[in-house]
């Protein structure tokens, strides 16, 4: 069972593998999770073949495990991402990204007259729809739908 499929990026002993990231959003995932500031070993591969996504990216993090809330932030850019939790070279758990109730400071409000686009205010959204992510701004109360979501970090 443990024999891996063709390894596209080298294996890790303990940590987390984030799979099924759309290739074009790899660097957004890195920024949202703040991976550039980690001291841990991080390897990633991108433009890998994927049946689901066309081109996908994958990130492997040694000795790094995420709380559900932390990882849920990437829902905006990698809704189909899958987490493999690795202990001693074995996948001991698999998780999907859960949809958070609120999104803070990651996306831009679509309303040009919103205070968050003029003052130094962290954006805050309530997540309305769990299937097609729609965000309701907690300041101007306007809705930013999935196709207009712009990541600002």
């Amino acid at each position, binding site marked *: 069972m443990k024999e891996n499929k063709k390894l596209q990026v080298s294996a890790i002993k303990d940590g987390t593998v984030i799979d099924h990231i759309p290739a074009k959003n790899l660097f957004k995932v890195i920024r949202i999770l703040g991976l550039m500031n980690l001291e841990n070993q991080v390897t990633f591969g991108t433009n890998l073949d994927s049946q689901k996504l066309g081109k996908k990216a994958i990130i492997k993090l040694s000795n790094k495990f995420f709380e559900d809330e932390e990882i849920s932030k990437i829902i905006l850019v990698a809704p189909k991402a899958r987490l493999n939790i690795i202990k001693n070279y074995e996948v001991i758990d698999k998780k999907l990204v859960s949809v958070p109730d609120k999104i803070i400071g990651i996306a831009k409000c679509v309303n040009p007259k919103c205070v*968050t686009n003029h003052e130094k205010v962290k954006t805050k959204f309530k997540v309305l729809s769990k299937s097609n992510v729609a965000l309701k701004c907690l300041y*101007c109360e306007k809705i930013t739908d999935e196709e207009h979501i712009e990541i600002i970090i």
Partner: protein
Amino acid sequence: MKNRSLVSIDDYSKEEINRILDLAEYFEENPNQKILEGKVIASLFFEPSTRTRLSFESAVNKLGGRIIGFTDSSTSSVTKGESLNDTIRTVSKYSDLIVMRHPLEGSARFASEVSDVPVINAGDGANQHPTQTLLDLYSIKKTQGTLENLNVFLVGDLKYGRTVHSLLIALSNFNPVFNFISHEKLRIPDEYKLILDELGVKYYEHSEFTDIISKADIIYMTRVQKERFSDPVEYEKTKNVYVLKNSMLENTKENLKILHPLPRVNEIDEDVDDNSKAYYFTQALNGVFTRQAIISSILGLK
């Protein structure tokens, strides 16, 4: 409600709305009381709105409070580029309550987060104007004796009119039936229809302003703004279709009252003004009592 900001009409529950309306009735009977003695109310109008500002200032004066502030941002430090954050933090040190109007949407919510004292939103762009909604509710309750089970007609700009949207949400607590009359370009947005569907509130949409108004308990008229049309010809046409004239009121219900947030353009003909069903000028006066109720309730004085 004590010490809590009023930014959006959904900040108040049905019970809290009822409490404000009862208090407004009390202030209508006893308008002059010195319960705000020693209190300083900051009135920050980052954009001018004489009507709303005078209504608030009248409410504060009748209660014996003091007012500091500015009437439009060109005369304040805001023109020197001070951030909203800094203005609010500073003013909240000098005052017991802030009343603010600002062109940016969400500005009042942001102010309520950085202020040490409660904030009353007197209009944030096209977003919310909850004191207008409460005075509309007070006017409806006063003229109908109740807010429950009313047939409410909303006419004009139902797409962009923030007073319409807030009124819908607030009235939905009271089992209404809504009838929407508007040009197809100014229809009620889908997101509000979804909310009404979820709440199980009945509503009907019409594009013609006809004798269906004979069923109305309340007709809430709004103005159609020129800016909403890219084609000036279409604006001229539309603006003359949704006009209420005295002759249209012949077969309407005895208890019908006509409301309008004012100022009007031409959507209510002046020949309606002397009809006893015209209520829009009294409605404006009700704003003072409603604001007295809101201010004294937030300051914990009533």
